């Protein structure tokens, strides 16, 4: 009974073990099966590793924070239509400009446009809902689902009328893959993630209070509306950065966040957040090692993650463990 044994460990011990495992995974990824000159291998794999670590961090933090402000354990930012919006933007670009031009455009520009669109979308949606008559997060989530369906239908429609050659390119872009990381984007993504993290750090002392629910947070003096807005923007930035780097990974955040909640003895953020980040790193880097060394690049990591994550999601629903 691994979970039982783990539960008895102090939180710091779990974090140390997870950190060590993550380090070993990183070292293995960098060195395993290395043939040829190190001066080529290290930068080449280093970029991939950096992308994976950035994505792991962003997805874990954004999911946990999103679940904190919505007070639930089963919804993730993708419920707000983020991945669908990403697909829509990609499809729209390729429909308008053609695959050749999109592929040849400056990736950094594309990245900023994608991030900007996603942040704008979430802020507009949030502002609109919170300045309107009803201010419930449930309504926000429902609207998110509707938007998701709308975006998905729109991109499906565009995909029907698109040039078949362009469609192949598009399909490739819409599957999460760590082999096609745009290395030009690493720097700018890291910068955005760092900025978002800094902002989140400044309101970090409110996280645990927010998890108690809106009314109790207000009663305890947290400026609830302001802080949730800040956190939502942070989540938008993190999700945009990671999605633009490797594509949408819908269930991955749910997977690592739930794992962190289950393994850690309490749900304080100072334990859950680092745990989720470390689990995400282990899963991504470890998964990529397995993928490269065992399946010999026959499949994409995104597909494996979605498969496992989807099963886990169903399990959560059936067990009714998550509210």
């Amino acid at each position, binding site marked *: 009974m691994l979970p039982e044994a783990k539960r008895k460990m102090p939180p710091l011990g779990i974090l140390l073990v997870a950190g060590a495992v993550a380090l070993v995974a990183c070292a293995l990824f960098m060195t395993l099966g290395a043939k040829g000159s190190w001066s080529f291998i290290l930068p080449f794999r280093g970029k991939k590793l950096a992308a994976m670590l950035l994505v792991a961090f962003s997805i874990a933090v954004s999911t946990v924070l999103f679940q904190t402000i919505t007070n639930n354990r089963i919804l993730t930012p993708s419920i707000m239509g983020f991945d669908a919006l990403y697909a829509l933007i990609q499809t729209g670009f390729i429909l308008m400009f053609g695959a050749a031009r999109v592929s040849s455009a400056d990736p950094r520009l594309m990245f900023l446009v994608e991030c900007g669109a996603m942040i704008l979308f979430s802020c507009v949606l949030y502002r609109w809902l919170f300045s309107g008559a009803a201010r419930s997060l449930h309504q926000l989530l429902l609207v998110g689902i509707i938007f998701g369906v709308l975006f998905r239908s729109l991109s499906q429609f565009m995909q029907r009328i698109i040039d078949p050659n362009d469609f192949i390119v598009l399909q490739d872009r819409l599957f999460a893959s760590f082999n096609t990381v745009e290395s030009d984007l690493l720097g700018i993504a890291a910068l955005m993630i760092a900025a978002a993290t800094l902002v989140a750090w400044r309101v970090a002392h409110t996280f645990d209070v927010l998890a108690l629910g809106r*009314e109790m947070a207000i009663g305890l003096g947290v400026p609830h509306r302001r802080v949730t807005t800040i956190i939502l923007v942070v989540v938008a930035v993190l999700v945009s950065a990671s999605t633009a780097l490797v594509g949408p990974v819908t269930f991955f955040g749910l997977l690592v966040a739930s794992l962190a909640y289950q393994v850690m003895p309490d749900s304080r953020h100072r334990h859950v957040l680092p745990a989720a980040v470390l689990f995400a790193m282990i899963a991504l880097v470890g998964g990529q090692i397995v993928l490269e060394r065992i399946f010999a690049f026959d499949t994409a990591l995104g597909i494996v993650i979605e498969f496992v994550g989807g099963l886990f999601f169903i399990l959560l629903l059936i067990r009714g463990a998550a509210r």
Partner: protein
Amino acid sequence: MIRIDNVSKRYGGTLVVDGVDLTLASGGLTSIIGPNGAGKSTLLSMISRLIGMDAGTVTVDGLDVTRTPGDVLARRLSILRQDNTMTARLTVRDLVAFGRYPHNKGRLTVDDGRHIDRALAYQRAFVAMVLCQDTDYMLFDEPLNNLDIKHAVTMMRLLRRAAEDLGKTVVVVLHDINFASCHSDRIIAMKNGRVAEQGSPEEIVRAEVLEAIYGTAFAIHMIDGQRIATYFR
């Protein structure tokens, strides 16, 4: 002193609180009673800035609740709502420790530890959290809901003690008239979004007053020097 000045609240087309003017003096235990939908909980939520008002102002010691920074108000006024469910997994001590958050912003001091230990003596975790917040004004929305007789009595004694020994201003929304009669210094009766009556238990717990508020027959008995209302048959 809590001053409620011409406060109104509308849900959709329904006026739930209709231009309430009310002054809650400092100290003592004040009960708010009234039939369902009278606007008791809504009024309490507006005082504690959980929901905004459509018109009017509420001030606590001269601080406008809608404009005062949340953490300033949280050191003066605490609120406990009826249903408290949460997804977080915490020990009781961790939960109670959140009562110190307005004072320490999440960094516990030795003094906080003493507050927590004292509050932990109370059996109900959420109530202990509010007591641990140690504010001058304490608002409770139907704290007796779902409590059995023993726990209800313990709860009311506890609130009574907070008012008497600690000098807190306690405001409680109650459904049980007899608890209100036996434990309150003051009773405010609401009906249809307005304050129908206010006064001491002797003034409010009278057959004709209660009949006007609840629209059903009451008989008032003096038992052990307390006014007990019966309405069961």
